[in-house]
């Protein structure tokens, strides 16, 4: 979240799209209700189904799954053409005025630079025109035909009301009504917050949907504002923390990235990531990349990391592929290229698309290690559970280890909620039997390996032999020791540029401002620096006072970065440093520095007259309406159909087959064969979760199993009539990859849509039930889903695919 849970109450309009927070984040959703009660805020939901969020909304609209970019692109056009944007904000705080290269273009559904053979873009043209000083050229009148504003306007002029209606299947009066409600927040003093979740991420165009939302918010002046922002309501309790800590194939902690194989030169690696400002004097905070990186290498490799060996640059693995994401990995596993696999609290058999392929892949492993508090489906993928897992154990040669772990109630530590709050918790009881904390298991494995490498030698032992291990009891690394390590400490006295002492050798760092690139600081995750300082564990703080009365409890826990609760909050004030309006005051310039209810997201003493942009992580200092080369499929979000489309064509670009689906998506050939067409599988399916359930875990919890006892699917009355299905009948839902059987819930909550001249029925398929646990057994929903992901993140397209519903 750019903002935070309690701040939702400060919004005037809440747009819930790509998520169903009343159902999936029930307690967080109370702040939506608070906004309605306190602020007379309006709640709008746009969803393929009429959801529990929709049930308390002021206005709801149905949409065909996977068409959110059309809706948002149409909205962008509407805001521009009816002149309902926050002009002063757009001019000063976005890149609208910057001029784009002359050779940049968009034709027939594709941006310049597309290479059809590889399915990738050469992105050179996706850039601003740069002047002799190395800065972007600009036209502050926004009239230049190649300024970002005009290009964006032209791009979305194609997203007409007719087009939105025909692609989304949403009646035009509903579209207009929502657009009008949204446009009202273009004035200072009115803010909209956007809440989304996996309903936006799990598409082959997921990342671009979210970008489109960010563009809307920039045009309306809602970023950095109280009650504004683009708010990802994340799934698991610490999915934010694990993302922040970089547990993703191409990342390092704090959103740093591993080198590609070609990046052999350390200096070039650093320089590429040291983003220099594209406008004069901008902060462009990533310019300090080397400080973060060297401090990480000192944390991991200690004295072994020296300037002479480029801080162990070659000790980190380099990438020969852009990403070794889970789809890529299971594709390789399926080809027999992987021998060993570890699942730490993760149930891929249930969580990954195309279950049959996942089973085949796991069966090709030599060994599988499952560390989990619970007996998961994955740990027993080799066991026959009748129709729900029809395998023959004798044919599966994988050696499987099941290692029992503690759960949250049995260990100390911090988790990061969706609002970036690091909250510390304490163990209440010992774990069952011999179960152990994951850190002890990791320590046990690591020490054995280290011993073997020391005794026997072997492949490249250096990083293993030199990995730092600061823990008093090496076999039992303590959570507080690990937390201190990711906060970081000084290895030598640290001084600022005026030779003032910032931190003494051996002290915990106060924040990432103290990090140095000369090896004098150690820090395991730069954005978490400040969480455990000389003052102690900041994550355990429990002062819930709210001095400004706007829900900013800065003394409760600790938020990254530097305990800031609303990102980009410099934008909450006008260019002259005064709040846009009194009701939305957050931080302001007091004549000598920035002060207010939040930690300023800005150099504390930079006066408004210096004119620096508020988006200090960006090279322009401005919100990027134009993404330049940062996205796989283009600098402006463009609609492409889901890989399984119920209309089989892209009405926006009907004549270019390359522009039907996301042209930059990665599809493996064997999976392409498993994509269906609408002639055979006519119904558009989407998956989701219920209030009573948490993914597959709660199949193991009796209370939850009782509350929602049996697998069901939701179908609209239109489809039910067509197929002669009554409420409570058993149905089979078939995709090209498998089938699930379930009870039919026939409901008006799912409407039949008219899309591009076709009648489209949507089908809702909850996920939860599997073949383990105390809940009633059922087919896993991922029997059905397609093996393709978003072009940037490779997050699977779980929200839009084709099925055929059959009465049993």
């Amino acid at each position, binding site marked *: 979240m750019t903002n935070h849970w309690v701040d939702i109450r400060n919004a005037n309009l809440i747009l819930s799209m790509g998520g169903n927070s009343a159902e999936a984040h029930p307690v967080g959703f109370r702040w939506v209700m608070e906004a309605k009660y306190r602020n007379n805020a309006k709640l709008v939901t746009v969803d393929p189904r009429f959801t529990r969020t929709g049930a308390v909304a002021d206005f709801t609209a149905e949409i065909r799954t996977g068409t959110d970019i059309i809706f948002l692109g149409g909205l962008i056009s509407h805001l521009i053409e009816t002149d309902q944007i926050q002009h002063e904000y757009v001019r000063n705080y976005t890149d609208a005025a910057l001029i784009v290269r002359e050779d940049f273009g968009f034709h027939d559904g594709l941006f310049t630079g597309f290479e059809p053979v590889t399915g990738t873009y050469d992105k050179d043209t996706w850039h601003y025109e740069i002047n002799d000083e190395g800065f972007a050229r600009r036209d502050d009148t926004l009239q230049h035909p190649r300024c970002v504003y005009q290009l964006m306007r032209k791009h979305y002029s194609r997203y007409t009301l007719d087009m939105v209606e025909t692609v989304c299947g949403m009646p035009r009066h509903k579209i207009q009504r929502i657009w009008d409600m949204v446009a009202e927040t273009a004035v200072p003093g009115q803010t909209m917050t956007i809440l989304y979740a996996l309903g936006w991420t799990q598409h082959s165009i997921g990342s671009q949907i979210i970008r489109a939302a960010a563009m809307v918010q920039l045009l309306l002046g809602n970023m950095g504002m109280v009650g504004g922002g683009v708010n990802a309501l994340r799934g698991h309790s610490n999915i934010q923390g694990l993302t922040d800590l970089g547990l993703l194939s191409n990342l390092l902690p704090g959103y740093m990235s591993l080198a590609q194989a070609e990046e052999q030169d350390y200096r070039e690696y650093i320089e590429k990531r040291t983003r220099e400002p594209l406008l004069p004097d901008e902060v462009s905070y990533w310019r300090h990349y080397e400080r973060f990186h060297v401090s990480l290498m000192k944390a991991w490799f200690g004295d072994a990391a020296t300037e002479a060996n480029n801080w162990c640059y070659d000790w980190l693995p380099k990438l020969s592929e852009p990403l070794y994401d889970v789809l890529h990995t299971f594709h390789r596993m399926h080809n027999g290229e992987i021998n060993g696999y570890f699942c730490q609290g993760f149930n891929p058999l249930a969580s990954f698309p195309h279950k049959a392929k996942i089973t085949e892949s796991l069966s090709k492993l030599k060994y599988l290690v499952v560390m989990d508090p619970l007996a998961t489906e994955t740990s027993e993928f080799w066991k026959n559970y009748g129709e729900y897992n029809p395998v023959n154990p004798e044919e599966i040669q994988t050696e499987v280890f099941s290692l029992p772990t503690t759960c949250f109630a049995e260990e100390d530590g911090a988790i990061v909620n969706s609002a970036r709050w690091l909250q510390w918790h*304490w163990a209440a009881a010992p774990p069952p039997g011999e179960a152990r904390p994951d850190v002890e298991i990791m320590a046990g494995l690591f020490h054995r390996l280290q011993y073997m490498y020391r005794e026997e030698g072997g492949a490249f032992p250096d990083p293993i032999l030199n990995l730092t291990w600061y823990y008093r009891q090496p076999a039992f690394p303590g959570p507080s020791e690990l937390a201190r390590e990711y906060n970081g400490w000084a290895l030598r006295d640290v001084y600022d540029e005026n030779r003032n002492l910032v931190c003494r050798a051996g002290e915990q760092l106060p924040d990432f401002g103290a990090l140095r690139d000369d090896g004098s600081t150690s820090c395991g995750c730069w954005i978490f620096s400040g969480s455990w300082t000389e003052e102690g564990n900041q994550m355990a703080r429990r002062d819930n006072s709210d001095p400004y009365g706007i829900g900013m409890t800065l003394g409760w826990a600790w938020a990254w970065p530097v305990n800031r609760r609303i990102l980009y909050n410099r934008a909450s004030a006008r260019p002259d440093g005064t709040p846009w309006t009194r009701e939305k005051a957050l931080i302001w310039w007091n004549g000598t520095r920035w002060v207010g209810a939040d930690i300023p997201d800005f150099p504390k003493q930079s006066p408004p007259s210096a004119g620096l942009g508020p988006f200090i992580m960006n090279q322009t200092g401005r919100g990027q309406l134009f993404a330049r080369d940062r996205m796989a499929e283009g600098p402006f979000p463009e609609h492409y159909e889901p890989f399984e489309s119920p209309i089989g064509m892209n009405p926006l670009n009907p004549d270019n087959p390359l522009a039907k689906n996301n042209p930059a998506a990665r599809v493996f050939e064997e999976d392409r064969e498993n994509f269906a067409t609408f002639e055979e599988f006519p119904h558009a399916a989407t998956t989701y979760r219920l209030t009573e359930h948490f993914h597959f875990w709660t199949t193991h919890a009796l209370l939850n199993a009782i509350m929602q006892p049996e697998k069901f699917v939701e179908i609209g009355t239109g489809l039910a009539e067509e197929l002669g299905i009554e409420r409570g009948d058993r149905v089979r839902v078939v995709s090209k990859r498998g089938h699930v059987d379930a009870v039919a819930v026939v409901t008006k909550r799912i409407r039949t849509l008219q899309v591009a001249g076709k009648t489209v029925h949507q089908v809702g398929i909850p996920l939860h039930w599997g073949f383990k646990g105390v809940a009633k057994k059922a087919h896993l929903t991922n029997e059905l889903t397609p093996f393709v992901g978003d072009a940037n993140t490779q997050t699977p397209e779980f929200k839009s695919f084709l099925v055929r519903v059959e009465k049993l």
Partner: protein
Amino acid sequence: MTLRVTRRQFFKLGAAGMATSSMAMMGFAPEPAVASVRHFKLTGAKITRNNCTYCSVGCGLLLYSRGDESINNVDDIYHVEGDPDHPVSRGSLCPKGAGILDFIKSRSRLSHPMVREPGSSEWKRISWDEALDRIARHMKNDRDENFVTQDENGNTVNHWLTAGFLAASASSNETGYLTHKVVRSLGMLAFDNQARV
């Protein structure tokens, strides 16, 4: 850290929070009559602060357990409530969080290491040492055999692609941090957490 508040104090805290908002209207505030019965059940309980392990709202939990950490006693969690001080959840929990005791004490909780040998249809109980020794040996053999120092273009890559690791996004930062540190030191790249899906 644990704290001891009496039930009376608890309800004062809770009521202060509730009165200022419409939350009590939404049906999660406990009835005083019920509370007075619970008072006895919870007397003497150890209360531990925690957070719900399910979704990313991060609601505050109070875990009530029996036992005083004396040597002949094992702490046992027997009741869970929302933390009234928590600025986001203010004492409330959703149906998942409210039922979390059934997760903590699920019949599916695993209590000892096991192995399933190739082709077998059964688990076999083993010791931690055996499990970790065998796994580490697999890793060592595989890494030594398949570690890539240089790619075909002569680039130093130092990666190990024949093993992969999925980390859990319900585990703590500290677990995640140590896992990352160990996994990368081995040169693994096929490394993700639930954020990928």
